[in-house]
Each structure stands twice: as C-alpha cells, then as structure tokens.
C-alpha cells in the first residue's frame, strides 16, 4: 500500500473500495441517526483523507499511474470541489500538518543530494537551469501575452499591466515540484543518472525561483499598481536566502549531532525538530523549503547521519506523502479549470513544449547521456505546492487582479500536478531506473 509493494491486484482494489464504502456508510449512518451534523472537523478530515488517499493510491497503482495521482484525485473528490466530505475550513486546519509534511519531504530531498550525485550532475544541472531561465520565463510570458484575448481578467488591463502579469506568469511556469519528483522516485525506488539529474535540477530550480519571482513581482507591481520598482526588495530576498542557507546548515549539523547521541525513536526526533524549525522559519520569514533542503544536504554530506536520516525520513514518507498530496488535492479549485479550460490547456501545452525545448538545449550543451536526454523534460512538467504558494503571494501583492491570476495558476497546476506525476513515472520507467511497484510504462 505504501507504494513499495507489488502492483495491486483486482482483489486489493475491491478490498480498498469496500473499506472506503464502510467509512462512508458509517458517516451516513451517524448522519441519519442525527448524531452528526454538517462536517466532521479536522480530526475526521485527516483520518478520512488518509483512508481515501490510501484507496486512491491503490486504484492509481492498479491502472499503472503513480500512487500520488490517486492521492490527489481522492483528495480532490473528497474535498470542497468534489463531494464535499471535507469543507474549506477543515482543509485550512490541516495546513499545519501539511507544512510539516512539506518540511519532511524537503529534508528527504536534500538528504538524497550527496556529494557523488552533485559531482556527477552539477554541469548538466547548471546548463539546464540556465537554459530554462533564458527560454521558459520570456517565452511563457510571450504565450500569456498572446493568449490575453482568452483570459477574461486581462481585458480591462492596460498593455503594460498585462505585460507585468505575463512576466509573473513566465516566472511561475519555471517552478517545478520537488515533492512530486521525490514521491515518484520513492515509489519506484528509482536509481540512476536520470534520477540523480532530476533531483539536482528540481532542487536547483527551487533555489533560483525565489529571487526570480521577487523580481518579476516587483516589475508587475510597477506596471499594475503604478508603484516604483524597489531594488531593496531584491536585497531583502538575498538576505532571506542567505539566512535560510545559514539556518539550513545549522539545522543539518544539529541533526547530525543528535543522530550520534540518539539511536532510538529517531522518527519522533525528526518530526519534533522539523516542526520546531518550521515554526521558527515561519516566524523569521525564511524559506522553509530551502532551509530543509540545505539541512538534509548538510546532514547527509557533512555528518555521518546521512543514511540514518534517509532511512528515518523514508519510514515516515508513506504516510507523509498520502497526507500531503490528498490535502493538496482537497485544496484544488476546479472552478477556474472548468471556466477557462481552453486557455488552461493552451498554457499547459505551451509550458510542456517550452520545457522540452529548454531542457533539450541544456542537454545538448552539457552533453548528457542519451537516457537523460531522451527523458529529462518529462520529469520537469510537474508543479505543485510551491507554485500555488507563490501564486498566493502574487494574489496578496497585486490586490484585485492577483486573485484571478492565482485561480488560473491553480487550474494549470492541477493539470501539471496530475499529468506531471504520470510523466515522471513514464520517464523513469522508460529510462529503466524504476525498480519498485508498477514499473511498467502507463
């Protein structure tokens, strides 16, 4: 069930479906008896998402899709955009658990980046990152600009304001999903050059996105709100990144020291530390994802805790992935997707095509091996929580128009998240690096 077993059999799918039917039946019975009214609260929501996500994972595994696609769709169906078992208030209440899940995923991603992996991939990752910055951001901004007749909320904007939004869109298109990549790699127990390259690229792009997005948002504010561009915003981002880097190093070393002293209950130790650090980084306005990635990388490379840290995070990863992606599914709002589907499809296709183009250029410059050259772009289609988080920031920074832009981002991310995970699995299976469950090409 966790994703490391064999491909589910029809009997297992049936058993899971019966389990879900029992839970739903229990809820309906309690409602009919008048014992519950309205919604079940955060505790019910969490338990329900774990079970419904588990069932969704089994079904997805059965049809050859990554399990996380099942978690997402199950969460989507259970959430406010689906049958409404879970309401928006409960989804919001789960954000604390979700933040913890993201921290653990980032820690694991960082821990996987060992010196040998970095040594093998730095050149390729560097070229790929540069190619993506130079091609995806301006060209996606151009696509957004050209597609403006299909985007209702740009109709009343001036040309310069639309251009500002287009630059933000281009930057958001550059965002990838370390969580999706790590989840699929973990499910398939993938190892090999494509796996190493994928991890390196998603982490590198995650570091680059912060200053790029801040700059793009600054430009958009000048065009949409008429504010003067403030270079000190970029300086603040630089400080934030540096402070996050330093915090990550300190946290990584702390993990290394504590792992030397404590040999039992390490799962609890990591969860407690992760939560405390998440709270601290939130208070200090550091980039949580970056802090945890650096911490994982430091613990893995500068201390002896690496293998134990990876083993510990892998112990929690099954349930963490279910909670994270099922909650992410419940957060997805399909209203914009249904309303704006032509432009959503256009933006999705354009981003995928530009990813193929830019990644291909990076491969050519880095002279990557054929297995990476052939499949690399497929891994980079996925988008998830980081893109939605940045869209929320844009909504706050651009009063009025920002919310509409964020809705469009969520709609495109929904497609990127589901299809991106499937494409990641396809790439790793085609590259022959998948060793775990359901490794056949979907």
């Amino acid at each position, binding site marked *: 069930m966790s994703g*490391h077993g064999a491909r589910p059999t029809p009997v297992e799918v049936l058993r899971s479906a019966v389990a879900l039917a029992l839970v739903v039946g*229990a809820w309906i019975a309690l409602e009919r008896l008048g014992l519950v009214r309205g919604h079940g609260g955060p505790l*019910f929501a969490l338990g329900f998402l774990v*079970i419904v996500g588990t069932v969704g994972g089994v079904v997805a595994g059965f049809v050859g899709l990554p399990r996380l696609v099942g978690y997402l769709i199950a969460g989507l169906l259970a959430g406010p955009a689906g049958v409404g078992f879970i309401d928006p208030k409960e989804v919001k209440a789960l954000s604390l658990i979700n933040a913890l899940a993201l921290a653990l995923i980032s820690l694991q991603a960082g821990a996987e980046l060992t010196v040998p992996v970095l040594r093998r991939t730095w050149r390729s990752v560097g070229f790929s990152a540069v190619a993506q910055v130079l091609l995806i951001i301006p060209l996606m901004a151009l696509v957004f600009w050209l597609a403006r007749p299909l985007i209702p909320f740009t109709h009343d904007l001036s040309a310069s304001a639309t251009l500002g939004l287009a630059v933000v869109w281009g930057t958001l298109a550059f965002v990838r999903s370390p969580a999706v990549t790590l989840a699929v790699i973990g499910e398939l127990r993938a190892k090999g050059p494509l796996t190493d390259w994928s991890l390196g690229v998603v982490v590198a792009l995650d570091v680059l996105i912060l200053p790029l997005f801040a700059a793009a948002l600054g430009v958009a504010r000048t065009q949409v709100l008429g504010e003067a561009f403030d270079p000190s915003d970029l300086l603040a981002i630089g400080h934030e990144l540096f402070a996050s880097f330093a915090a990550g190093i300190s946290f990584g070393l702390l993990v290394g020291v504590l792992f030397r002293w404590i040999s039992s209950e390490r799962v609890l130790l990591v969860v407690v530390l992760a939560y405390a650090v998440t709270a601290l980084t939130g208070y200090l306005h550091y980039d949580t994802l970056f802090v945890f990635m650096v911490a994982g990388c430091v613990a893995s490379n500068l201390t002896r805790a690496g293998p134990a840290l990876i083993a510990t995070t892998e112990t929690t990863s099954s349930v963490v992935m279910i909670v994270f992606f099922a909650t992410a599914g419940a957060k997805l709002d399909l209203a914009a997707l249904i309303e704006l589907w032509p432009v959503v499809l256009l933006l999705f296709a354009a981003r995928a095509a530009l990813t193929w183009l830019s990644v291909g250029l990076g491969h050519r410059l880095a002279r990557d091996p054929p297995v990476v050259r052939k499949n690399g772009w497929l891994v980079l289609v996925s988008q998830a929580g980081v893109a939605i988080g940045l869209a929320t920031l844009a909504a706050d920074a651009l009063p009025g128009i920002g919310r509409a832009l964020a809705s469009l981002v969520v709609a495109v991310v929904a497609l990127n998240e589901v299809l991106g995970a499937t494409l990641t699995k396809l790439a790793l299976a085609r590259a022959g690096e998948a060793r775990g469950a359901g490794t056949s090409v979907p």
Partner: protein
Amino acid sequence: MTSLLVLLGLLSVATIAARRGRFGELVGGAATPVLVLAGVAVGPRGLGFLTPSVVSGLAPALDVAICWLGFIAGLRAGAPIAHERPDRRALLPLLNAMLAAAVVQAFASSGLWALDGAALPVAALLAGACLGAPASTGSDARFAKIVALVAAALALSLASPASLAVVLGLGSVAALVVLLAGGHDASGTLIAVIGAVTLVAGLSGIAGAPALLAGVAAGAILARSSAGRALWPLAERSERPVRIVVTVVVAASAGVDTGAAALGAALAVVALLAGALTLGPSHAARTGALASSSLALALVASLAAAGTAPTLLAPLLVAIALVDAVAMALGLATRLRRGEGP
C-alpha cells in the same frame, strides 16, 4: 501552532521518560501522582504555562491519544494467551464498583456531592472500571482489565445506549478498514491504522461517544489477525509515552475543588481496601498490584468528554493519583526492606 508545539514537546519528554532504566522506572512506571501534579502545575490553574486556549487546542490530539490507548488495550484483551485462567483480580472492578457506589451515595446523601439517583449506577461502574483495572500488563491482570472494560461499557450503556452502539459500530468499521485497506506489509497496516484511529477519534468526538471504547473494540477485533501482530511493537513502544502525555494533559484541564478532592480521597481508600482484600495486603504491597492501569485515566477522561458522569473526572483523577502514590510508596518500602535500594 502553539498547541502542536506543546504536544510535540510533551511527547518528546514523555518518550525520554518512558525509556527503560532507573529514570524511566521512576518517571514512566507508576508515577501517576507525579504526572498529575506536573499537569496541574503547568495547567491554567497552576503556573499557567498551558493556557486554556492551548489546552483546548490539544483536545483533538488528546482524543487520538485516548483512542490509541484504547486500541492497545483492545489488542491486549483480545490477544491469545495459552493456559490462562481468571484469578481473584477479575473481581476487583466489581468490588470497587460496589464500594464506590456506597461512597458516592454517602457523599450525595450528606450533600457533599451533587448526584442524582439515576446517575449512581453509572458513577459506580465507572469508578469500578477505573480503580479496578490493575497496572500489570501480564496475562494475570488480563481478565481484570476485561471486566473493567465491560463495566465501563455497561456504564456507557446505562448513560446512553446509542453511544454504546456507536462505539461498537465505529470500532468494527475501524478494524475492518485496517484489515481491508492495510495490505500485506507492516507499512500499509500502519498507515491504515493511523487513518482509522484518527477517523474514529474524530467521529466519536462529534457523535459524543467515548473514543477509548471504540479503540478497544477495534483493537480486540484485530488482536488475533496478522495486522494486530504487526502493530504490537509500535503499540508496546508507544504506550508509556502516550499515557504520560494523556495524564499530564487531562490533569492540566481538570479542575479539582475541595469536594472533588474529598470524594477522590474516599474512593482511593476504598480502592486500596478492595485491593488488599482481594489480593492480600502483603502480596499487593510486594508486587505493586494496587497501582491503577494506564487505561484508568484515559477511560474516565474519554467517558467524561462524551458526557458520561463528567463530574466524576476530578474525583477519579485524585483517586487514581492517590492509589498510585500509595502503591509506589509501598513498593519502595518493600524494596528498601529487602535492601534493593530505591
């Protein structure tokens, strides 16, 4: 966020305290009085480290913890043990219930405690269940714990028959979910049990039913399955820390006034008397069998939260702490006499 940080902090301290060794024995063993005092001290009525909002924020986690303790009790109650026979301990909950009925009635008649007549059997059964379940985890105490759980279920059925049906139904659903969705590996079983216990705790909370008994039902059904066996190591490892957290949080949230303290003291005296009568004074002192089960406080907290004799929470908290204090003192005295040191 503060509540979650407090919870994780408590859990860390509890895990360290529950480790084996001299410190663990002192803090994690039969140290309910210490934990109750610590809970009262850090709670809103003490030093106020745990504010009322933090304590109320801990309520969902407390529900899950209590349901998990019930689940462990169910696993233990349903586990197969060869060549077992009920001994005199099985009578303890019933004897305690009878004596508690007399005490509560006396307090109610003399105006020291407000209790209507219909609630007396419920209060007596609940007190018997809490004070009659012994501390031992061995097979010798198993029947006493089963009788205690049946007494608690009876108390619930008298207070609210529908709630009993709800907890049995939810427990069965949770067990079936684990069996059906848990897959064949330990990781799958663990995820399914996390989901099922959280769900049942949440549903019990909103349906006004005690999560602990739903957990007991689920654990008992799973006890003889491969899923139950796969969960044993985690159950054993987590029981002491979870129990410590539950005790501290319940003590922090309970308000103990003079009347509750007096009733609690009287109940403790009769519980000690019942233990001495049933087991023999020297045996009870030597083996520490007078101490109450880890289930006791969770049981009364869970039933009280579900509206079953809620006023008994504070007196039973005092009674459990006093009984355990006496058991600890007797155990220590016995060891000192034998020259084993504290």
